[in-house]
């Protein structure tokens, strides 16, 4: 079943009115994405599951104030999840690089209509601007974002002190900002 962005917005609106069935359908349509986001950061299924729960509790509590003109529902939810996941990750000691736990079903997700995805030109622009950072810096930025890694973790991974990582990150951010606004 394909859900359009307006389908999802409609579900969120109904969730805001206390509609449990809409909430269940919203969960069915979006939970794999949300779980994937949490897992990418936490890499621990139990913790990711907690974040998954927290996210939908928050969605239930805040659905009434969701504004579909500001963001699409899944982006709103995924941002909640990612922030929660990073908060949780920061509470814990640095996770060593471990294998993705066995038994994960990387689901071939429900295809989403293209207007839910980021516009192709925005993707292209970011890809080009990331290229301009050079191979090391773009990996730094990509890993930081995709896995919510702290400067400390990035420092260990890239073999540099945190201060150096911070400087690199700030330079990269400045470059990206300029490049993206051109």
């Amino acid at each position, binding site marked *: 079943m394909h859900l359009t962005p307006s389908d999802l917005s409609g579900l969120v609106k109904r969730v805001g009115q206390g509609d449990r069935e809409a909430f*269940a359908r919203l969960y069915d349509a979006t*939970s*794999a*994405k949300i*779980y994937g986001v949490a897992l990418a950061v936490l890499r621990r299924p139990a913790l990711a*599951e907690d974040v998954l*729960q*927290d996210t*939908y*509790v*928050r969605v*239930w509590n*805040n659905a009434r104030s969701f504004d579909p003109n500001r*963001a699409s529902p*899944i*982006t709103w939810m*995924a*941002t909640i*999840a*990612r*922030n*929660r996941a990073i*908060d949780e990750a*920061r509470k814990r000691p640095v996770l060593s*690089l*471990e*294998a*993705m736990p066995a038994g*994960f*079903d*990387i*689901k*071939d*997700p429900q*295809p989403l209509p293209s207007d839910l*995805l980021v516009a*192709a030109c925005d993707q*292209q622009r*970011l*890809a*080009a601007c990331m*290229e*301009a950072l050079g191979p090391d810096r773009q990996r730094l930025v*990509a*890993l*930081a*974002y*995709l896995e919510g*890694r*702290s*400067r400390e973790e990035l420092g260990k991974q890239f073999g540099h002190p945190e201060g150096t990582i911070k400087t690199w*990150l*700030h*330079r990269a*951010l400045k*470059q*990206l*900002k*300029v490049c993206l606004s*051109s």
Partner: protein
Amino acid sequence: MTDPDDTIDTLAGEYVLGTLDAAERADVAARRLHDTTLDAAIGEWEIRLAPLGLITAAVSPPAGVFQRIEQRLSDPVQAREPNGTQEATMVIVWRRRADRWRRIGITATALAASLVAWTVWREATLNAFPDRYVGVFAQDDVLPRFYLTIDLKTRELTIRPVGAKQQPGKTYQLWIASEKLGGAPQSLGLMEDSLASTTKVLSQYDPALLHSATFGVSLEPEGGSPTGRPSPGALHTKLLPIAH
């Protein structure tokens, strides 16, 4: 001397990137509730980095989670949310086919998974538009001074200054050099406003030449180089080969 807005912007950027430590994150989360500049900066960074969110894979959650969510919501104590950060806007969705993971021989480590996903997205995105290139004029390998983007299909070149200072009585001039042109730099004209973007259509050059050319920027007296050659100290760049 640091520009105070600059610090807010890099703080917001690091927050969205996820690199701040626990104390810094808590500080930003609290501050943005009353600091509209910070809050706006965070929103802008989320939009800028949104395409990266496309890369995250969906994974089926374990069964029974929804029941637990419902149970929590029916218990007024548990329905309260944990102390977390405020959500803002933006994208984290990507769809990915499970067989693509297998095809590229994904290994078991989570680290490799993210980098592989990143590589796949990057190559797919860049290859979608093989005619677009970027060039960076850097000074001392610190902040670049100019960004150049060019579309080989339309031969439209845009050059954008970054932190380039307006010099009274002087102007920036753009050059192209190529063996196919005999090696000596040819002027592509002046940057009319050194603080804004300049766009030129280089229809007199064929795309193959543009692809392999060296581009230069020099600081000249108003009206351009008096010698017809770039003054010393010119910055140059080649186009970044972002098409494969």
